[in-house]
């Protein structure tokens, strides 16, 4: 069978809607299966757009090794319900199919479990509600259930975890999310002006504000047919890497806290403070809100900021190296991380894991390498890989990525100093190409963030779709805790530190 799809190698990219090959669902099904059998191909976007009364399903696959995207679609006329589910052959599509089902009421025949993704306010089935969700049950005299959330013991986001345990061991973990749903995608498609859209994108996932703002800014720039200047590209990547360093160090503190290694916890907490205060020194916000804007920036990286960044990174780099060396050689700590919460390479591939969750299972999946954006295009970048897939791997990967990012930023800051031009301010009035489909990927600290949009014939945004790396990776956590002691759940959870607000939107 010949494959019909549009191949694109740029990230971000904009193509006309008309150029996306349209086929019947049967061909859509078979070519999806055919392409996705190939290991390095994973799905970055698969969603429905209502066209009059019909439903157009647009799918975008990313091929990591060939560094390109493949886009194709199918149009389902009214009444074509149900359609065969692809998930049984390609498990990673299960969550996309659930989302399409939840939003449009389309049934996927053969899908093992069309479990609600987030109970959005505009869901197709208004009779269902978050508060009476029927959890998965396994009958058995030896089994008991443990329910946690949505309000957790710590100061964290809401979500419900339902463990089915056999003694102290977890047989099954069900994760139900949606408590953070506030209608982000609907608001972004509601005709807001450029500035409001940018501010919203700062406030979707707070721990990845820079990553989200960047995914949005480069999407809008692509839709406007412009590319930001070199200095801006460098500054954005510095912001993105600072965010990565801050979260990785903060999560190392949390991991140490969970295994009662107080020195590791407090030292890492203090180091994270140093990093986020540097971001605040640069732009007035510890999370980098407001730093990245389409077209330019309000906070250019001047000499004062450059000096501060280099000084702080040198100090933090040394101190973090010392403490992480201690953490990962201390037998009482390593014993709590090693062989705990293991995700196998095969599992990670089948659920479509991205970012850290994939790289700790030996999968080379990093947008900075596979689909480079901004200044990564001009630089060679090698992702860190660890094979073991356990809590220790996720801890060690963070330590290595911190040191890589510090070296990377140091190079970027020096390159930035070489550019004398003044950078432009934001441009909120960019006119967007009409009748287009655009997609942008950014490698945030968790992994691949995908923003995608569709414009109407006047260039208005009529559809805005966001995919957080957690969208796939929550399943990795559910798999990681199987057959583990329930008391190891906290370290497993912290080692991923997945996003609730990014999933719930």
């Amino acid at each position: 069978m010949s494959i019909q799809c549009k191949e694109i190698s740029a990230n971000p990219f904009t193509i006309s809607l008309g150029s996306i090959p349209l086929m019947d669902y049967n061909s859509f099904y078979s070519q999806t299966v055919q392409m996705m059998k190939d290991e390095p191909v994973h799905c970055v976007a698969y969603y429905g757009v209502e066209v009059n009364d019909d439903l157009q399903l647009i799918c975008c696959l990313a091929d990591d090794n060939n560094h390109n995207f493949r886009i194709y679609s199918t149009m389902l006329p009214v009444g074509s319900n149900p359609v065969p589910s692809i998930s049984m052959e390609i498990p990673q599509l299960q969550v996309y199919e659930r989302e399409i089902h939840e939003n449009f009421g389309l049934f996927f025949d053969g899908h093992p479990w069309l479990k609600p993704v987030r109970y959005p306010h505009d869901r197709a089935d208004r009779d269902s509600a978050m508060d009476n969700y029927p959890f998965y049950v396994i009958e058995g005299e030896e089994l008991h259930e443990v329910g946690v959330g949505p309000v957790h013991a710590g100061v964290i986001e809401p979500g419900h975890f339902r463990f089915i345990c056999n003694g102290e061991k977890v047989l099954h973990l069900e994760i139900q999310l949606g408590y953070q749903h506030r209608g982000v995608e609907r608001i972004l498609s509601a005709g807001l002006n450029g500035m409001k859209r940018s501010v919203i994108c700062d406030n979707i996932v707070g721990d990845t504000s820079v990553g989200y703002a960047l995914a949005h800014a480069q999407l809008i720039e692509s839709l406007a047919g412009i590319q930001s200047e070199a200095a801006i590209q460098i500054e954005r990547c510095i912001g993105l890497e600072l965010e990565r360093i801050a979260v990785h160090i903060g999560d190392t503190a949390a991991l140490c806290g969970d295994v009662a290694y107080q020195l590791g916890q407090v030292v890492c907490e203090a180091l994270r403070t140093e990093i986020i205060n540097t971001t605040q020194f640069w732009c007035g916000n510890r999370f980098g809100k407001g730093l990245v804007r389409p077209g330019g920036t309000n906070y250019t990286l001047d000499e004062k900021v450059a000096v501060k960044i280099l000084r702080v990174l040198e100090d933090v780099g040394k101190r973090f190296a010392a403490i992480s060396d201690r953490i990962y050689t201390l037998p009482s700590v390593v014993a709590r991380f090693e062989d705990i919460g293991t995700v196998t390479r095969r599992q990670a591939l089948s659920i479509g894991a991205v970012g850290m969750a994939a790289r700790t299972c030996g999968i080379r999946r990093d947008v900075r390498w596979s689909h480079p954006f901004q200044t990564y295009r001009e630089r060679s970048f090698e992702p860190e890989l660890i094979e073991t897939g356990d809590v220790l791997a996720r801890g060690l990967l963070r330590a290595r990525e911190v040191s890589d990012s510090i070296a990377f930023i140091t190079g970027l800051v020096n390159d930035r100093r070489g550019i004398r031009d003044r950078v432009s301010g934001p441009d909120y009035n960019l006119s967007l190409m009409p009748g287009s489909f655009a997609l942008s990927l950014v490698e945030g600290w968790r992994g691949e963030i995908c923003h995608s949009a569709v414009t109407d014939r006047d260039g208005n945004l009529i559809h805005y779709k966001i995919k957080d790396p957690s969208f796939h990776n929550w399943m990795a956590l559910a798999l990681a805790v199987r057959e583990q002691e329930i008391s190891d759940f906290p370290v497993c959870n912290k080692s991923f530190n997945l996003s609730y607000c990014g999933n719930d939107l």
Partner: protein
Amino acid sequence: MYKEIKILRQHGIQYVKDLRRQPVSELFRGRPVISPDITGKEIETISTLCPSGAIDNKYGSIDLGKCVFCRECEFCLKEKIKFTNDYRIAATRREDLVIRPGIDNAVRLNEDVIRKEIRKIFRRSLKLRQVSAGGDNSCEMELNAAGNVNFDLGRYGIEFTASPRHADGIVITGPVSANMAEALKLTYEAVPDPKVIILVGTDAISGGMYSGSPALDRRFIGEHHIDLYVPGNPAHPLTFINGILDLLSVS
């Protein structure tokens, strides 16, 4: 052991000695100051510009309960608006969060509305249960930071508990999504009387950028007396800490 000692030496003293007067970087976006001679036309411009509708189109005042601290109004009118780095902006009355043109006074708590039992019972120990309800997780991270090695709010006997049963009140973050409305109500009911309610972050105070979204259900906020408003996007740990210390009258 030698390694640990070396690390501890590098670590040094990290805690902020004086949480009341700790300086923050110059660019930190705190209390804005609006020039008294801002014109009607300028007010119109910035009130239309403001992404969260925080600027009154008649008086030109900025409502910190709605402001998302994006500073876009200042970028538009550099001569007339300046966001200072004054982080002490918590208030006990909603209306005290409104900053009018020509006013450059610190935001202070109105003592008259503070319930007597708050200081009597909680002054030396206040345990709080946090409820995260539809935000972006940045306020939650700042609340965690308030208890970390730097800010160490625990030194005043103020801490977050794991259960509402052990708490003296709740701290709400996020714009209150409809999907969290029931859980928020149940958590509040589980806290024994007397209890306080504290709203942290612009999202919680007004809905912020999500104000008006059909996915929210803010009835709980409207139906209850709020003891403390802590604005910010997110609220800085020092804003939260100073607000609580003022509420409890801890010097």
